[in-house]
């Protein structure tokens, strides 16, 4: 019986206000041991804020928290800072990455809790124990590797390993699967069930409702900072949750047929990126076509996109509309190649600047006369883009840093949609974006393609690749392992190619 499960953490009337916004108001919830609690809601609904309050990173403006002590009795606490939360047995994986890149993997996992005697660190033991947690999350890197050299998905796994290694009673995960591929995400869900079986309370946020469906014992739905529903397993279905989240039904996004006779806009010939890739890759994308890059973590999708965009050096040729482009990103952007990077905090956003500055950066160049910014036009554009991207809250003067993760992503995409680039490269375009907004972003990308642009996107979600792409390139070990048309593609076929199977075989098996 669910009621028998002990309450480890109780939230009573919790709210949080920032200057001018109420991020969260009047939330009541119980977190029980041996249960997985999912928190869902649109971008900006207040999920991260709630999780941060639960883990002591943010102090609530009102309301209270109660934590169970050793005997199981609930006691009101003020979690001021992470130390307090750790002492209360609570661990958090943040939505945005938070690793000190100069430390090694083991050092990052044990940062703040290094095995030591009188301050003297036992590095050997630390590395040994780190190995255990890395194996658990399925990350096959040496614990002495510096974090700075890991790609983003592996860093995310390091963060998860770090949270697991605290062996807390309450484990809180904010969109842990957003940068993972299927395989790792599955593994994480398995770990979560194992923890549940051991009586740990797991709280997690995800925009993938299928994950929620699979594992959650209870779901708390937030909308505009308020709780709009709490449902136990068996009481809900997907449509119901979506309705509670958005307040309406979401239209499923639709496949579209591309024009196979359109001229080639982007051609890539013999591309080898500078980081010791083995085989060169070549492909072309026609006007109006949306090409998806699929592959496992580390397959080289990010490297390929960054090479095409000119942000990292490469060999081989890149042609737009039949003319070769060379040089750095500034030249290529002027020739119409735009990239939405994978790591938005590091490579995409100007966090301390306003939404308007972030959104109009590319546009001001395109529309300038004699290099002067058209300020009236800029204001109009920003208003239009905020509306088109459904940014919430819709204030152009707000610092991007204070936006929720999904809304940050929308402002990066908006920057490029504002100038209709000839070639749009998207690396994980909907990471952290809610279901509703995802459909809107997909629609915008399709609109762009319909207007004649070539779109290439990389995504670790096969679902998204299958949904959005007209054609799928599967990458393995740095090059294209095979190509699938949208109608002949399936998850099985893609995985087959991604793990090194031959193209012919994959296609046949599918057929």
């Amino acid at each position, binding site marked *: 019986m669910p009621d028998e499960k002990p309450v480890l953490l109780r939230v009573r009337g919790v709210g949080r206000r920032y*200057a001018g916004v109420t991020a969260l108001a009047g939330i009541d919830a119980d977190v029980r041991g041996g249960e997985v609690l999912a928190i869902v809601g649109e971008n900006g609904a207040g999920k991260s804020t709630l999780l941060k309050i639960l883990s002591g990173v943010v102090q609530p403006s009102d309301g209270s928290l109660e934590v169970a002590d050793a005997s199981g009795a609930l006691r009101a606490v003020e979690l001021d800072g992470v130390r307090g939360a750790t002492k209360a047995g609570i661990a958090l994986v943040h939505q945005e990455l938070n690793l000190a890149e100069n430390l090694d993997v083991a050092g990052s996992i044990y940062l703040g809790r290094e095995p030591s005697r009188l301050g003297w660190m036992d590095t050997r033991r630390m590395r040994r124990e780190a190995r255990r947690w890395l194996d658990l999350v399925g990350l096959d890197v040496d614990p002495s590797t510096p974090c700075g050299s890991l790609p983003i998905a592996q860093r995310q796994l390091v963060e998860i390993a770090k949270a697991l290694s605290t062996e807390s009673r309450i484990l809180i995960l904010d969109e842990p699967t957003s940068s993972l591929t299927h395989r790792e995400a599955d593994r994480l869900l398995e770990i979560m069930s194992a923890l549940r079986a051991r009586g740990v309370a797991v709280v997690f946020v995800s925009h993938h409702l299928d994950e929620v469906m699979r594992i959650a014992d209870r779901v708390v739905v937030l909308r505009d900072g308020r709780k709009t529903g709490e449902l136990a397993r068996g009481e809900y279905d997907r449509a119901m949750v979506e309705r509670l989240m958005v307040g309406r039904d979401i239209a499923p996004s639709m496949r579209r047929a591309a024009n196979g006779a359109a001229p080639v806009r982007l051609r890539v010939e013999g591309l080898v990126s500078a980081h010791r890739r083995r085989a060169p890759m070549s492909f072309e994308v026609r006007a109006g076509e949306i090409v998806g890059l699929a592959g496992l973590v580390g397959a080289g999708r990010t490297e390929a996109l960054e090479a095409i965009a000119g*942000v990292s050096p490469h060999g081989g040729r890149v042609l737009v509309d039949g003319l070769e482009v060379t040089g750095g990103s*500034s030249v290529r*952007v002027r020739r119409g190649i735009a990239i939405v*990077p994978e790591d938005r905090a590091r490579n995409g*956003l100007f966090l301390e600047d306003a939404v308007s500055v972030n959104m109009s950066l*590319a546009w001001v*160049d395109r529309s300038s006369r004699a290099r002067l910014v058209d300020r009236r036009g800029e204001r109009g554009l920003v208003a239009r883009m905020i509306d088109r991207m459904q940014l919430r809250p819709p204030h152009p003067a707000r610092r991007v840093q204070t936006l929720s993760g999904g809304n940050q992503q929308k402002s990066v995409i908006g920057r490029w949609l504002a100038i209709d680039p000839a070639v749009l490269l998207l690396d994980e375009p909907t990471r952290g974006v809610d279901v509703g907004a995802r459909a809107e972003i997909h629609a915008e990308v399709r609109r762009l393609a319909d207007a004649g642009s070539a779109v290439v996107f990389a995504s670790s979600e096969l679902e998204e690749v299958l949904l959005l792409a007209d054609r799928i390139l599967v990458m393995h070990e740095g090059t294209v392992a095979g190509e699938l048309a949208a109608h002949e593609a399936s998850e099985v076929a893609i995985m087959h190619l991604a793990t090194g199977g031959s193209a012919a075989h994959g296609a046949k098996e599918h057929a």
Partner: protein
Amino acid sequence: MKKALGIIGIFAAIFIVACIFGENFLTGINLMQLTQRAALYSILALGASLVIVTGGIDLSIGSVVCLAGIMTPWLLVEHEWAPAQVIPTVLLMSAFIGLCHGLLVTRLRLQPFLVTLCGLLLYRGIARWMTGDQTQGFMGEFGEVRAIALTKFAIPGIENYRIPSTVIPMIVLAVLIGLFFSRTVWGRWLLATGRNESAARYSGVPTAWLVTMSYVACSLLAGFGGMLFIFDIGSAQPSDFGNFYELYAIAAAVLGGCSLRGGEISVIGVVVGAATLQVLRNTIILVGLSSQLEFAVIGAVLLVGVAADELIRRFNARRLERTGAAASA
């Protein structure tokens, strides 16, 4: 503008103290001389802020002031060049120095602190070597060239106070730089580069080029400032001319609201910051404090000023959060 409020408050406070306690502070000639000094230092501070906005730093400003300042009379008097040759030569040399800094920083990716620290040593060394440590001066001649910095324009109806000519380049520069950042694409790009270099690069901003140009502009202004300084002072010695001016320039920029992390600037703030330092020095003498205490007083006043500014800012933010909540509740 908002970023400049803090330093404007500090400036106002010092000004009021100077009016009350300083003998003859509010006389035309004193204000005239103060305007002159503020204008000269502002030019350096504006240059410094251009580099600071990229997240870099230029420690060589004082030495470029020295080299440019020393070269001007050296070429005019010792080498008997014509003024029309000397001024472009000195400015070109300054710009070239900036170009070297910029290329070393952007192409070789050396740390700006290190590059410009070497510059600090190098250019002063060159100036000393070139002149054999001799004081360089105009020997009472070249009045018409020195008029660039020494002319004073009368304002009809106002006696005693006349506007020093150095105010003109200062205002022109301040307005240009202000417009550059608020109105031009390059200004936008430079701010973006300072905030997040990598994101700017991903967005197609030619970051290396822009940063290089900032260093060029900074050194160019330092060279120009050095020329005006020597026109004003009349003679200078290579071993000490311009010493520490980089710190005054950077301090003015930072006081004026530039963050050393880059991406922020307030032109008004920078100019007021430079003026504040000069008024403070003047006040110390007019109030009659011993010149031994000058440093201590400047340090203490600035520290108290910025700390108070920060506390007021916080207090306001907290009030806003509380009232903001009330409004939305």
